[in-house]
């Protein structure tokens, strides 16, 4: 069994992994860049090693330094989290060479599924439905144009390597195809070091529905139901939920079987996610496999009651999955909101800086996977995620109400956050109706603005703040006997 895990990541996901390590009696080793010296994941770890400067290539992406720390610290396994090296086949391969357990699938599987055209071939062989599209990456714009004609406009340009919307372009007219291919390829090259692109049929008004899978090294594969991740901005998910408002029990079985087939076809071992596009007629198409722990895994944990990170560690230790498909039943409804340091009033531009004050929401059914604390800096150098706020309730309606309440109590001062935007989305009729297509934000919230709000109360709070600073005003126990209590006092009841 694994005794010490190096977590090759930072932020909320590193903290979340350490939580499970601690429960399992496994020691955790943090690595960090110099700007992260006071980061929460460094504070939480049993051991912490500075591995370089803030530039990711010098630290969180530096494979050899991370492997050196693994050896120096005696870690027998590495958990890559998501992002950074999580889907880097070369890193997984180096772990294999150095005999350090990589908590994830093999380098071969990462490599094959990471190349979207190979992945498509595997899925077609495995009987998993895929979108019409090219079977190989290309760079010649003429061939791309011909393929686009064959597939039929609109088409979607995608980067063969990578994800997260980078290098992605929708092309609706033949005259745009050349320029779009050039732009997408250069974007892909700078983002992933690989400019290869390919085309797929663009599915209109689709939903993004993904299935969590667990596969052990003994050939057992199950899925942990779906996640609906259609609410995206700039191809980045911002709100996820499970179950999907669009998935019927029959469709769930069909798609779940396809997800398990996808895992089996690729020789997958460990936790992974099979992403599908679901069109309005209930047809679904394989999109890609995310060969890592997914950002939005907590909503699956809430409805299935299963700790996915614990299962990852057990699978990586060679343990057999004790769960069978029939043991998996969702209960209630879970929603996740991603809370970034970003300014919703300035086109969601990142808003790094010092968290001057943080108060996390809490209460029954509320979980906040958080990577910051009061007084810490959100550095300019990384993905500006602060936390993922997750709620779980009896049904979708109650989960929405719980999320609105939780957001309304989430105090983050010092950096901007999208909390007011998220609240408006959750309060909207379109969300209540489950009209969660991937164009949801564009359609319903393109011109969102925060509105004036309750200016009077804000001004009053400013004044009260001035008065309480100046007079060094503090409640005193003795002031309970004053006639002027801050709370309504029924005078004649005072004794």
């Amino acid at each position, binding site marked *: 069994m694994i005794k010490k895990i190096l977590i090759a990541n930072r932020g909320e996901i590193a903290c979340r992994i350490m939580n499970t390590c601690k429960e399992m009696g496994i020691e955790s080793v943090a690595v960090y860049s110099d700007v992260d010296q006071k980061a929460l994941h460094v504070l939480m770890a049993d051991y912490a090693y500075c591995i370089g400067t803030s530039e990711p290539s010098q630290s969180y992406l530096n494979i050899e330094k991370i492997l050196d720390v693994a050896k120096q610290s005696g870690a027998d396994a590495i958990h890559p989290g998501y992002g950074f090296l999580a889907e880097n086949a070369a890193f997984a391969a180096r772990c294999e060479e150095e005999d350090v357990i990589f908590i994830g699938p093999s380098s071969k599987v990462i490599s094959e599924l990471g190349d979207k055209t190979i992945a498509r071939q595997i899925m077609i062989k495995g009987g998993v439905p895929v979108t019409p599209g090219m079977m190989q990456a290309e760079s010649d714009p003429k061939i791309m144009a011909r393929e686009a004609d064959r597939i039929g406009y609109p088409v979607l340009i995608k980067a063969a390597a990578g994800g997260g919307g980078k290098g992605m372009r929708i092309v609706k007219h033949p005259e745009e195809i050349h320029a779009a291919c050039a732009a997408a390829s250069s974007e892909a090259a700078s983002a992933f070091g690989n400019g290869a692109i390919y085309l797929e049929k663009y599915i209109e008004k689709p939903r993004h529905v993904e299935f969590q899978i667990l596969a052990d090294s003994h050939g057992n594969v199950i899925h942990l139901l779906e996640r609906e991740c259609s609410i995206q901005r700039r191809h980045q998910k911002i709100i996820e939920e499970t179950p999907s408002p669009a998935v019927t029990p029959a469709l769930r079985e069909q798609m779940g079987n396809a997800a398990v087939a996808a895992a089996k076809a690729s020789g997958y071992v460990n936790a992974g996610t099979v992403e599908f596009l679901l069109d309005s007629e209930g047809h679904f198409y394989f999109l890609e496999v995310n060969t890592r722990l997914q950002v939005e895994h907590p909503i699956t944990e809430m409805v299935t009651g299963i700790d996915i990170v614990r299962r990852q560690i057990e699978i990586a230790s060679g343990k057999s999955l004790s769960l069978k498909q029939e043991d998996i039943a969702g209960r209630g409804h879970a929603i996740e909101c991603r809370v970034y340091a970003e300014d919703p009033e300035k086109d969601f531009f990142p808003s790094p800086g010092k968290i001057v004050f943080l108060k996390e929401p809490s209460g029954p059914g509320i979980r906040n996977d958080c990577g910051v604390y009061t007084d810490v800096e959100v550095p300019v150098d990384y993905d500006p995620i602060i936390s993922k706020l997750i709620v779980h309730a009896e049904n979708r309606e109650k989960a929405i109400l719980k999320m609105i309440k939780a957001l309304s109590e989430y105090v983050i001062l010092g950096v901007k956050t999208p909390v007011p935007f998220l609240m408006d989305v959750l309060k909207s009729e379109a969300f209540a109706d489950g009209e969660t297509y991937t164009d949801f934000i564009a359609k319903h919230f393109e011109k969102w603005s925060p509105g004036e709000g309750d200016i009077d109360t804000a001004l009053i709070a400013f004044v009260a703040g001035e008065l*309480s600073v100046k007079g060094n005003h503090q409640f005193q126990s003795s002031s309970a006997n004053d006639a002027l209590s801050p709370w309504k006092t029924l005078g004649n009841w005072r004794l």
Partner: protein
Amino acid sequence: MDYNLIINDKNIPVNVDLEGEDRFVVSIGEKMITVGFGRIGDHLLCLEVNGKKVNTYIADTAEGRAIFFNGKTYLVSDADALNQSGSRRSGGGKTIDEVTPPMPAVVVAVKVKEGDAVKKGQGVVVVSAMKMETTLFAPFDGTVTKVNVQAGNKVMPGDILVDIEKQEEGASPE
């Protein structure tokens, strides 16, 4: 007491009459509101506004006092205090007349040099933050008098990256 407060880029005069240690009446425009208040620790201000309680969380930031309640954060500043301290920051109005980044960032490219004539809306500096690039534009027609940064510099909000002298265009008081 009279305050002249800035919120949502508006100047709002606020008059306050104390009614004891933890109670005051505030006049905002035509409205008169009775307020009870109590402070818990550094950041929590419990208010009672028109009989209903509301917990507000406050902290001072570079952009003013941040005030949070009911899921929304407001920024409020004291215009008189800003004037006294000779702050460069323009309180009311939204005239952006400086080339300064909206957030801590790294300069990716400077697209102008000293002496260049620039048009309003022309890109002058490209900065990058958290893997996103954004272009800063000239706020008006004019001439670049000084370039204060070069590619690779780390810059902060308020840093003037490029000085641009505004072109004469009649005697507009704005």
